[in-house]
């Protein structure tokens, strides 16, 4: 039954995306523009700058790709919740036979699936068009991706919780994403930050996701060699997911009590 619901949600989101033709095309134009900017930035800096022993363009490619995947997934999910509040769909969805928590998880999976496709296209274009050199260990990539997805799911659920509770999910996501962009090492290695900021960066789960994906995709490190990164990612996922779900459940109950489910 759950797969049937997931199929229905994926189909809804795919049809909606495809029928927003201009948005669909602009996403792909945006991907190539961004990649071109990073390519020429890395050329301007020169080949002597090799953070972590890898060329700067592939370093940027993975860092910005994984960062964008996280932020855009949470953003897409948040937009879906906001739109549902504005049209009144959220109230109706909450009266279906599907438990609200299940509905939220399935909807966020759909949001992440769309952005996962974007990430694959982004990385593939970087390799095929801009000649980024990779030495991938696909098993390690898959493990990083699965653990990162669990964290991204929690992030999306937290954004939705804040949207339902205070109607301020977008503001918080904006604040978080600018802070995380600076701290996560998407553009430069976190080791170049002052020591206190580096320690702060080590408390950000996205830092491990980006580092993990770079190690797996650019250096071809094995699962065994990446055990500490996987442990850190798994630790974040195990703590964040149940907390996010409990917070969501509480905020939905509070909204039903106060009659604010469709407030935006």
């Amino acid at each position, binding site marked *: 039954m759950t797969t049937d619901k997931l199929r229905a949600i994926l189909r*809804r989101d795919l049809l909606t995306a495809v029928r927003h033709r201009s948005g669909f095309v602009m996403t792909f134009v945006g991907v190539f523009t961004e990649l071109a900017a990073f390519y020429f930035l890395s050329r301007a800096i020169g080949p002597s700058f090799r953070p972590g022993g890898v060329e700067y363009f592939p370093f940027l490619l993975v860092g910005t790709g994984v960062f964008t995947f996280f932020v855009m997934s949470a953003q897409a999910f948040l937009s879906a919740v906001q739109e549902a509040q504005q049209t009144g769909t959220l109230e109706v969805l909450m009266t279906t036979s599907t438990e609200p928590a299940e509905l939220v998880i399935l909807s966020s999976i759909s949001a992440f699936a769309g952005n996962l496709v974007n990430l694959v296209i982004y990385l593939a274009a970087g390799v095929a068009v801009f000649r980024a050199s990779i030495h991938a260990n696909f098993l390690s990539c898959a493990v990083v991706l699965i653990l990162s997805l669990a964290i991204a799911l929690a992030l999306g659920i937290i954004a939705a919780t804040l949207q339902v509770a205070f109607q301020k999910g977008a503001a918080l996501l904006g604040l978080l994403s600018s802070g995380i962009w600076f701290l996560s090492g998407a553009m430069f290695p976190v080791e170049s930050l002052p020591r206190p900021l580096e320690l702060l960066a080590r408390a950000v789960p996205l830092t491990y996701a980006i580092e993990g994906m770079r190690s797996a995709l650019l250096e071809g490190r094995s699962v065994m060699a990446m055990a500490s990164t996987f442990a850190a990612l798994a630790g974040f996922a195990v703590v964040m997911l149940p907390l996010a779900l409990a917070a969501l459940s509480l905020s939905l109950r509070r909204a039903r009590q106060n009659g604010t489910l469709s407030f935006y």
Partner: protein
Amino acid sequence: MDRVVFESVDKKFRHRPALFNWLGKERGGETIALKNVAFSVGPAEVLVLLGPNGSGKTTTLKLISTMLLPDGGSVRVGGFDTQHDAGKVRRQVGIAVAAERSFFPRLSARENLEFFAALDEVPRRERAQRINDVLRDCGLDEQADTLVMKFSSGMYQRLGIARALVKRPSVLLLDEPTRSLDAATTAHFWATIRALAARQTTILLATHNFAEAAAVGDRLLLLHRGEMLANRSLGEGESAEALRSFYFRTTGEIDERVL
């Protein structure tokens, strides 16, 4: 056994003024939406909720659907409490809300119904047939494959009713269901309501339309400022005119037609 039971239900909405309220004049305080309301509805019964704007009709329907939770008392549907067994309640209830545009605009009518039917756990093998049936019953078969962003108000309203019917609920909640419908569609809809009641569906219908109340109702619940003023059977052949006089006599509101 009664299918919907309200026991001493209270519901109020609190308004917190904005943080920088000196910039505007937002009112704080609370609105009492329902005060000590108690009633029950059985299978095959059509209960009409009448009352002026803000009397608590929509709040009553939302409490049954679990969109809202009561502050005091209890609401039970099919023996299940809406606070503690919300999932079991939702499986039994279908609601057509007054918010007409609660659909996904870039999906067709059929695609919207397929989506909601999946979430309502309508078996896959029955889904296509059920959707065809409700689209026909609601007069939308010709617009089934039109994107709903192109729909008129009346078509949205019909689609809302179709969505509520597709899960074949044992309790059907309708909030001003014919507000934007033309005369022929309204007459057809009233016949559909009576047919559903004959198949043991419990129906609660909020309306301002006395003709509608007289045409489909078995019983009448009159609400005024959150309080229940009347809960009585509708007599066989009771006219819309008789209902109208009862309404104004009981609520104490002024009927400008007789001035």
